[in-house]
Every structure is written in structure tokens, then in C-alpha cells.
């Protein structure tokens, strides 16, 4: 029983790290810009498709058709020669093998640009408009983004293999001094957990220890005063939106080996991430992270057969149930500041 609980706890941390990463970006945008961004899930999805694009580039092949031979299904035989291996040799093979982590290099600039384009193009006109309209315009943007991806990459999920070395499971039980094979957990999921930790730590350090971060935090607290001090807060906010997009995008990239990306994965995560943000407290970064992990763990435990035997269907609703209770009992969330968005 202990192992079962421990495993479910690990699983919760693993789920939670994805929730926390998405909610972090969402909160950054809400906290700094005051914008309720329904397109955030789409940014997550776009990030995942950066990994797809990178892999497609890395696995480009020259196809020569050999008309003299036929394949077993009667079409002329195609002879395929991978390009990257031809150019880079062994390094090319490494690039293909590690395409997911390497695609981070592509994701960061792409997502930064996408984020800045979103903000400058559309969202900045909505700072003063009511939240309902912000929701609507970003909801529309999300639809456009996902439909563009659909028309380019097709409606089907595109599996992204993880690096050879990270396949299979690690025996955590042995590290903790238990018997072999008692607690094993997929390596990539552990990698994702660590990766999330690094990103979250990075964002907090950035806000805490840089001048830029200090100004942004001041802006979050009191935008007008900071503006009066002669600081161009707008430009910093643009960069913050870009940063939030990058965080969402990176969360998406590293998630691809766990779940083959498809065009509507963003919408699937969007509702969840909003719930996480609300539970953590609108505008509270530590709240978002804590709530992400909390909800991940709760969801994982709720899926246990023993729990479902007591409350049938609880695994389907636990997250929403928590959100409803928090909103009704403590609308500022776990760690939200008093007065922010309270009504």
C-alpha cells in the first residue's frame, strides 16, 4: 500500500509540474498586464508544435523513386535518404535522437516572437477593455491559432519519440534503499519534473534578482505609480508577455513525448490551467505553482481504485470541485492578495 501511495504521489507531482508551468505563464500575464488570456493554452500547443517542426526539419529525407522495383503494395519503390545524417554524420543522428530537447533552441525565439506579436498586435488594445472582452478576443485568437496549426500539420496527433536514453523507467525504489522493481517511474516524466523545477526557479529568480524583474513586480503592484516615475512600463510588459509565451511553449515542447501533440491540446489544457490559477489566487505566482502541484496530486489520488470505490466518479470532477469550493469559500485563492479580483 505504501508503494502504491508513493507512486500516486510521484504521478501527482509529475502531472502537477505540467499544470504549474502552464498556470505560471497565465499568472504572469494576468499579474502584470491584467489580461485574462484564453489563448494561453494555444501558446502551449504552439510550443509543442515547435518540437514537431524541429523534428520534421531534422528528419527531412530525399526521396528517389525507383521505377524498376515495386513495393509489396504495388507502388514504385521509394528510396529514402535522411538529409541531416548525410550532412552532419553522427552528430546528425544525435540531433534526431535528441530532437525534443534540442527543439528548445527553436522554441525560445519562436515563442518570444509569437508572444510579442500577440501582445503588440491585438492584446495591447484590450488593456482597458473589460475582462469579458479580453476573454472573447483571446478565445478567438486561440481558435485561429489552433486552426492554422490544423491546416498545416493536419488533425492527427504526431508522436514525438523521446531520446533513446530516457526511454523506459528508472527504479526509484533502489535509490531510496528499497527492493528492486517496487517503485519504478518513467525517466522522461522525472526529467519533466526537474525541467519544470528549473523553469519555475528561473522565472522567480528573474523577477526577484534583476532590476527588470523589480520594475515588473512594482508594476504588478501599482502600474500607474511606476508609469509616473518615468519608466516605460509598456515595453516591459510586452517582454513579459513574450516571456510568458516562452514558458508556455517550453512546457509544451517537453510534454510532447508524453502526449503526441495535436491541434486542440491547448483547449484541453486551457480550462485546467484556469482552474489552477483561480485556486492559487489570481495574480499570485507562488500560488499558481502551489496550486498546480496540489491539484496534480489530488487528481492522481482521486484516480485510485480504492478512492473511486468510496466516491464514484470523483476522479472526473475533483479539480473542478476544488475550484468551486475555493471560489465560494475563499475567492482570493490559496495565496492571492486580499483585494485582487475579489468580488
Amino acid at each position: 500500500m505504501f508503494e502504491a501511495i508513493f507512486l500516486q504521489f510521484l504521478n501527482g507531482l509529475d502531472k502537477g509540474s505540467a499544470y504549474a508551468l502552464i498556470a505560471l505563464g497565465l499568472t504572469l500575464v494576468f499579474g502584470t498586464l491584467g489580461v485574462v488570456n484564453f489563448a494561453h493554452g494555444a501558446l502551449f500547443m504552439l510550443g509543442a508544435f515547435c518540437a514537431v517542426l524541429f523534428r520534421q526539419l531534422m528528419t527531412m529525407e530525399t526521396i528517389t523513386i525507383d521505377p524498376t522495383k515495386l513495393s509489396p503494395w504495388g507502388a514504385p519503390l521509394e528510396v529514402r535518404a535522411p538529409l541531416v545524417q548525410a550532412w552532419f554524420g553522427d552528430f546528425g543522428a544525435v540531433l534526431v535522437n535528441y530532437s525534443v530537447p534540442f527543439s528548445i533552441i527553436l522554441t525560445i525565439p519562436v515563442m518570444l516572437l509569437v508572444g510579442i506579436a500577440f501582445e503588440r498586435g491585438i492584446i495591447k488594445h484590450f488593456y482597458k477593455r473589460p475582462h469579458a472582452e479580453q476573454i472573447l478576443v483571446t478565445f478567438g485568437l486561440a481558435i485561429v491559432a489552433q486552426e492554422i496549426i490544423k491546416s498545416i500539420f493536419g488533425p492527427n496527433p504526431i508522436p514525438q519519440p523521446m531520446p533513446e536514453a530516457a526511454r523506459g523507467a528508472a527504479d526509484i525504489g533502489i535509490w531510496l534503499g528499497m527492493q528492486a522493481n517496487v517503485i519504478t517511474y518513467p525517466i522522461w516524466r522525472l526529467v519533466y519534473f526537474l525541467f519544470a523545477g528549473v523553469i519555475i526557479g528561473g522565472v522567480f529568480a528573474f523577477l526577484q534578482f534583476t532590476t527588470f524583474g523589480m520594475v515588473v513586480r512594482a508594476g504588478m503592484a501599482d502600474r500607474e505609480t511606476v508609469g509616473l516615475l518615468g519608466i516605460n512600463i509598456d515595453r516591459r510588459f510586452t517582454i513579459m508577455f513574450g516571456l510568458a509565451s516562452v514558458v508556455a511553449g517550453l512546457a509544451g515542447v517537453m510534454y510532447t513525448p508524453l502526449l503526441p501533440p495535436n491541434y486542440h491540446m491547448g483547449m484541453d489544457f486551457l480550462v485546467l490551467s484556469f482552474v489552477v490559477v483561480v485556486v492559487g489566487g489570481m495574480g499570485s505566482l507562488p500560488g499558481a505553482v502551489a496550486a498546480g502541484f496540489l491539484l496534480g496530486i489530488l487528481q492522481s489520488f482521486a484516480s485510485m481504485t480504492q478512492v473511486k470505490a468510496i466516491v464514484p466518479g470523483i476522479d472526473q470532477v475533483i479539480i473542478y470541485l476544488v475550484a468551486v469550493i475555493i471560489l465560494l469559500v475563499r475567492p482570493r485563492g490559496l495565496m492571492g492578495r486580499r483585494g485582487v479580483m475579489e468580488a
Partner: protein
Amino acid sequence: MLAMPRKDLILFLGFAAAVLAMPIWLQPFGAAYPDLLNRFAIFAIFAVGFNILFGLTGYLSFGHAAFFGVGSYAAVWSFKLLSMDAVPALLFAVIISGLFALAIGFLSLRRSGIYFSILTLAFAQMSYNLAYSVFTPITNGETGLQLSLNDKRYLDRMFFEAGAGLPSPTLFGVTLSGYVAFYFCAFFLIATFFIAQRVTGSPFGMMLKGIKSNQTRMNYTGVNTRPYTLAAFVISGMYAGLAGALLAITDPLAGAERMQWTASGEVVLMTILGGAGTLVGPVIGAWLIKYFENIFSAINDGILSQFWGFLPEGAQHTAVLISSKFVGEGWFLTLGLVFVLIVVFLPGGVMEGVRRIASMIRPNKPTPASADSSATKPHPAE
């Protein structure tokens, strides 16, 4: 009751005539077949009801599909247990969805703004997930609730024997299918439009608009706004239930996917697209979206190459390639683009566009609807 202002009366009669004549004027658009016409009427009712909440009070619900779904399930259960007649099904559906809306509204309306949206979203997703899993005995899960030969139909059995095969929904013995079903739905669309029109013009409607423009001020003047918003919520929930029941009457099947949050998003899109806060706007929005979904989405490459047939070979190919991204399976892309453009440039939706064009044509005459245009800039209470 009939003492309506002249302007309202003209609007109402014009609307009724347009709805009743739909099988004729939709002919050139390829949309005049009963199933789509039914959907036009049903989703128009849904959107008109949604507008009573969102358009008037500014409360943005992202969970209205739940009431729609509950209405459908209730209607099908009425068919299974009581009778194939549409009247008990409708009554049952409206009552159940009304009670459901009362419970959810009572809790959700304790918060406003984005919190309200998330609460409704959470409730709707809970209903959807449960309908899909543990409530399977009631909802039949993914397969959807359908009629079967060994349903009880106690009321019907009291009067006559079961015939061979599956029965169809009836209205006092008349089978509701094809154009009969459409005129049945159209009757309800016109009736609910009339009710919405009366609600908007009534003191109650004025109160709701007051909540939208400044709830705090309303509270300071000593008005308790909660009962008013709750009433609006329940009314719009009943509208959704009615629409859901009508969909089950025209096609006796209820599936869980009509409760998913994207279905709630769809009615939001309809209302905004047409023009929130106006009476006709949501109807137009619903028709546009259903037209896109059913007709636009069926355009395939074959039809496109015919359309671009006048172009030279190469250009035709390119034109087909580009345009195929926006029709057929890509219809949702077009919809998304139109939606974003509308929210950015025409926050009042199609109706604001119509007004702007009208005022361009008649620049001197102040448009009577300009009083309404302030309502198109919703300021929900935060």
C-alpha cells in the same frame, strides 16, 4: 400584453415573417432542408436565452451548454418513460433545466466577473464529465441516450398499443418530422423571441441593464441585485433547456458532447458575432454559425475547382489550394478570424455593423437604436 410600442411590434412581426418564410428565402443558399432549419430555430432560441443573461446583465457564463444537455436528456427520458408526445417532454425539460440553473446560478452568482465565468465553466465541466462516466445509467455515456423498443412509455401505453418499430415524437398524434418539426420549432423561436422582447422592455429588464452598467451603484441605491441576476440566469437556463429539448424532439438522441465547454463557447460566439445586448443579433449569430458548420464545412475540393473554374489551370489550382484552407474542414478557421475581427473592430457584432451602415446612408437622422449601442459595450461588474 399586446400593447407594444409600434417599433417593437414591427420588429416582432418582421422577425416572425422572416422565420416562417425560412424554407423559401434560404433556398438559394442551399440551406433549406428540415434538419438545418430545425437547428437554425433551436440554436437561435439558445442564443436568445443566453443573451438575456449576458447581453442584459453582462455576466459571461461559460457553462450554458450544461442546461442545453440537461434539457435534451430530460426530453429523451420523457419519451422513454412517459410518452412520445412533445408537450410533456418540453415541460419536463424546461422544469428540470430551470431547477438545475437555479442551483448552479445560486452558487455561481455569489461571484462576478471572471470568477463567475470560471464557476459556471467548472459546473458545466463537472456535469459533462459525470454524464460521460458515472451517470452512464442515466445518460448512456458516449453512445448517447436513445429510444429503444422496450421503453416503458407508461402514458402512451394507457391509451394505445405499441406499434412496430421505434416511434417518433408526436404532437397530439401528429408526427413531428420534416417541415412539421421545423414549424413546431419556429413557433417556439417566435414565442421565446416575443418573451425576450417583453423582458428587455420591462422594468425587470431595465434593472438588469442597470446591473450591467454599474452593479455597485445599484447596490448603493439599496437594491439587492442578486434576485434579479438569479432570475435572469434561471430564465436563460430554461431557454437553453427548451432548445435542448427541441433538439431531442427533432432527433431523439441526447449525447454528452453537447454539454462540453466548447459547446458553451459556441453559444458565446453566436451571441457576440450577432451582437450581444440586441434582440435580433444572437439569432443572426446562431444562424451564421450553424450555416458555416453545416454548409461551409461540406464544401470540398471538387466544389471549389468548379467555383474557380473560370481561372486558367495553374491559377485555379492555387485558388483551390488557398481557399480550401478556409472552407471544408477549415471552416472553423474562417469563423475564428471573423470572430476576432468582430471583437476588435465591431464589438457590437453584426448588428452594430448594420447600424453603422444604416447611419451612413441616413447621416442626418439619429438612429433610434443608438440608445442601445451603449449596451454593446458591456461593463460587467468586477
